[in-house]
């Protein structure tokens, strides 16, 4: 054994959750080592200079749910975290008009009124309801999921607490929550609004990262997540990280190092070493073995349990649950280096709208048709796109006068008919640029460089199984006490001293860091 020194914990994967986990363990005085396969930390939370002078938030591109307690407890602003506001969302319409939602309430109201006087009023009432519901489910986001079938005192206490909490809910809010849990986002929003681009753009937040369409039941629940950030009392804890999304990982890594954690890059773990049912360390691809009292995996459940652990070490029912775990990738990224700003047909030239999001979601039908393509194994010919221009907010992202554009694209199925290859990747990139050109005709001539990231690339380069950005779909059957598998939702695993801390555990999804933090607290409970 080459283990010169023993660690209290070795963390597999230097994504944001792995780093958060390491920081919290180090903060408690543990000797911690993070092992990252790539040359930089961050995982999907990464900024890379793909084209000289242009910095791309290659994958994840906005910060919406980073837990305020993590920002506070790790003192992230001191370590370089700076969140800049993304203030608006503009949805260009096929008829040359647009729907804008702005930072200012009066302006948004007037704009919505222009499209639908009723929706202008409904929008405020909807916001109030979402505020209430987000407040109601907030405790869930911060708790270790109890096992509802267990009689352990700890589970019972948690369930009791939850029961009491929900009994305190106003009846109207309880019914609304039930509807959100069961309905499709399109149907739910139909109950509120009549303006098509408004419904479509709002419903899009219910489908991001899932292999579902806006008319698929269960998508309404995800709408709620968009309102979570607003109730945590941290003014504008959502937005764009200065320096790109990678700056979030860099800040967490800096905090972790300051607390004493070691971080090694270009260190690929090939196996979790298990002896007598206990994890005792990891083996690297180059043969090095590192022993540790505790092994924590920040990878997704499929990679962790189907690749790194010998099948014989895991119970068959657990393995079955992990095999059945849905992790279908459904989205891609296109990142552009631009010589000039896009000029939208609906809002030509530069303007405040380019500092916010541009959503290509003209109607619910448009989104559902985009999903139809994906259902049958094709990428969407006219995809949903969520576009931001980070260099408009942070000029350091591109050379002076030039710009970077981040385009989140859905749908791009991992299981593409005939499989992904270079040709298909470029065809996908073309579909995205062609669609965008319908709303911003100058875009093609503005492109200096194009980076297309397919679900296949996400799996191969960024270790996201099937290219799923959330380490497993955020649908109700895979949330809370079912994430990633029944009975194993408290960050522990069937292997003693092997823990999981990635987005494949509760609450999962987005750059929240909650999984990393909750896992660390559980590890520390075990001593």
């Amino acid at each position: 054994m080459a283990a010169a020194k023993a660690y209290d914990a070795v963390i597999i994967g230097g994504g944001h959750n792995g780093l958060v986990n390491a920081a919290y363990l180090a903060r408690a005085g543990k000797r911690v080592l993070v092992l990252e396969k790539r040359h930089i930390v961050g995982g999907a939370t990464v900024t890379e200079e793909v084209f000289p002078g242009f910095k791309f938030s290659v994958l994840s591109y906005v910060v919406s749910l980073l837990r305020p307690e993590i920002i506070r407890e790790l003192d992230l602003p001191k370590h370089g975290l700076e969140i800049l506001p993304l203030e608006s969302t503009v949805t260009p319409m096929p008829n040359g008009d647009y729907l804008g939602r702005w930072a200012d309430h009066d302006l948004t109201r007037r704009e919505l009124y222009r499209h639908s006087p009723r929706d202008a009023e409904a929008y405020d009432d909807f916001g109030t309801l979402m505020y209430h519901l987000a407040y109601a489910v907030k405790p869930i986001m911060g708790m270790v999921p109890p096992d509802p079938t267990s009689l352990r005192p700890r589970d019972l206490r948690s369930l009791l607490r939850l029961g009491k909490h929900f009994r305190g809910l106003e009846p109207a809010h309880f019914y609304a929550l039930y509807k959100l849990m069961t309905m499709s986002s399109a149907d739910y929003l139909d109950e509120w609004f009549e303006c098509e681009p408004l419904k479509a753009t709002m419903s899009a937040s219910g489908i991001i990262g899932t292999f579902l369409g806006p008319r698929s039941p269960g998508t309404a629940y995800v709408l709620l997540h968009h309102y979570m950030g607003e109730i945590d009392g941290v003014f504008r804890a959502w937005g764009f990280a200065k320096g790109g999304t990678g700056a979030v990982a860099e800040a967490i890594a800096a905090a972790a190092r300051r607390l004493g954690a070691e971080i090694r890059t270009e260190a690929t773990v090939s196996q979790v070493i298990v002896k007598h049912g206990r994890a005792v360390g990891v083996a690297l691809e180059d043969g090095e073995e590192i022993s540790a009292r505790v092994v924590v995996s920040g990878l997704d459940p499929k990679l962790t349990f189907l690749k790194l652990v010998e099948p014989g070490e895991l119970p068959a029912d657990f393995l079955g649950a992990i095999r059945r775990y849905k992790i279908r990738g459904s989205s891609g990224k296109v990142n552009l280096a631009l010589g000039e700003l896009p000029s939208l047909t609906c809002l030509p030239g530069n303007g405040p709208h380019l500092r916010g999001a541009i959503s290509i979601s003209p109607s619910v039908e448009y989104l559902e048709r985009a999903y139809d393509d994906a259902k049958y194994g094709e990428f969407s010919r006219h995809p949903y796109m969520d576009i931001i221009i980070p260099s408009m907010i942070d000029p350091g992202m591109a050379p002076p006068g030039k710009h970077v554009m981040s385009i989140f694209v859905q749908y791009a199925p991992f299981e593409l008919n005939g499989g992904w290859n270079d040709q298909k990747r470029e065809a996908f990139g073309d579909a995205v640029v062609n669609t965008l050109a319908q709303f911003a005709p100058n875009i093609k001539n503005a492109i200096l460089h194009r980076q297309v990231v397919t679900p296949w690339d996400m799996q191969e380069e960024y270790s996201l199984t099937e290219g799923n950005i959330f380490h497993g779909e955020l649908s109700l059957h895979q949330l809370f006490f079912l994430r990633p598998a029944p009975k194993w939702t408290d960050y522990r695993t069937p292997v003693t001293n092997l823990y999981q801390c990635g987005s494949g555990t509760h609450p999962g999804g987005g750059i929240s860091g909650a999984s990393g933090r909750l896992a660390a607290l559980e590890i520390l409970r075990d001593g």
Partner: protein
Amino acid sequence: MLRGTPFHTRTAPLCQAQNWRRWAGYVVASSYELTHEHEYHAIRSAAALIDVSPLYKYLIRGSDAERFINHVVTRDVSKCAVHQVMYGPWCDEAGKVIDDGTLQRLGEDSFRLTSGEPNLRWLQDIAVGLRVSIEDDSDATAALALQGPTSRDILKDICDADLDQLKFFRLTFGRITDIPVTITRTGYTGDLGYEIWVETAQAIRLWDALLDAGRPHGITPTGILALDISRIEAGLLLIGVDYIPTHRALIESRKSSPFELGLGWAVRLEKDGFVGRSALMDEWRRGPAWVVKGLEVDWGSLERNHAVVGLPPQLPATAWRTSVPVYAGKKQIGYATSGCWSPTLKKYIALAHLRSAHAERETQLEMEITVEHQRKRALARVTDLPFFDPDRKRD
């Protein structure tokens, strides 16, 4: 950009103070002159011209219009004569106030409702199945308030309507010079005054006509700062300041019923079903937990509190709109929501939500004041509203 009102091209050059504020998505002048005092005194001793166009206005028409509105508001609209105006609140099913405003009966089957918040969706949803149309008239109709003792004289000089016959809370149609207008004898100042409703396209001409005719009568373009003082003196509530509309209240305790706002007189429980009736009936039986009343802060107490640091009483220069604790003994029993020094009454006055047990007229309470960075309590006496109610308002 925020919108200017239909009068903006006239009000903007007059606004020496460059002191603007938002009102329902528009910019309006806080004061035109560098201080608002002259504008305030115009309300009480001459005539103030106030741009109130940002009010939300709804035209409600149809053979079921009366039936519909009677179902929405707490007052009895069947008692509202043609060309009468009624003020009142409307509630949700729980009997909590959604908004308040004036209802103008323009004709047998035609009404205009004004409000502080948008209400189109609420009204439309209730109107389902009735022969009634609801039209958002907010942008199409501009409004000016002409308030003060000389306001009638000004109008009589340029208006063909019989203003001597126009009683308090009545309306008439007429022409100002040649501009067709609706004139209501209403206002937000508690003084003699009128509100003039005009098609937006004619707004500028109306402004010019009034200002010309008003000059010999001391007409003064007046901003919101002066209006705010006069409406507190008149005991008139401001939505979003003195109460939170139920649709915007995040928690139950922020909502208020009409009884709690001192608007019990406007609730007609004896009329047939209207929104919130059964909840209001229950509340009426057990009595409201809160009530909005006036507070008069005791001058001697103000003097004593300031004398400790060697100062005479320091008075607020403008009306304040913050929540200020009110105590009975050691216990907080309420909160004031707006207050000001009344230049007319020479009293420091405030509007306050008080627990009913402490809301009896003449009850001695204490209101928090800040004296040189220190929190103190000044004696305050509970009074009925309005504080100021001159005979000329109704005469």
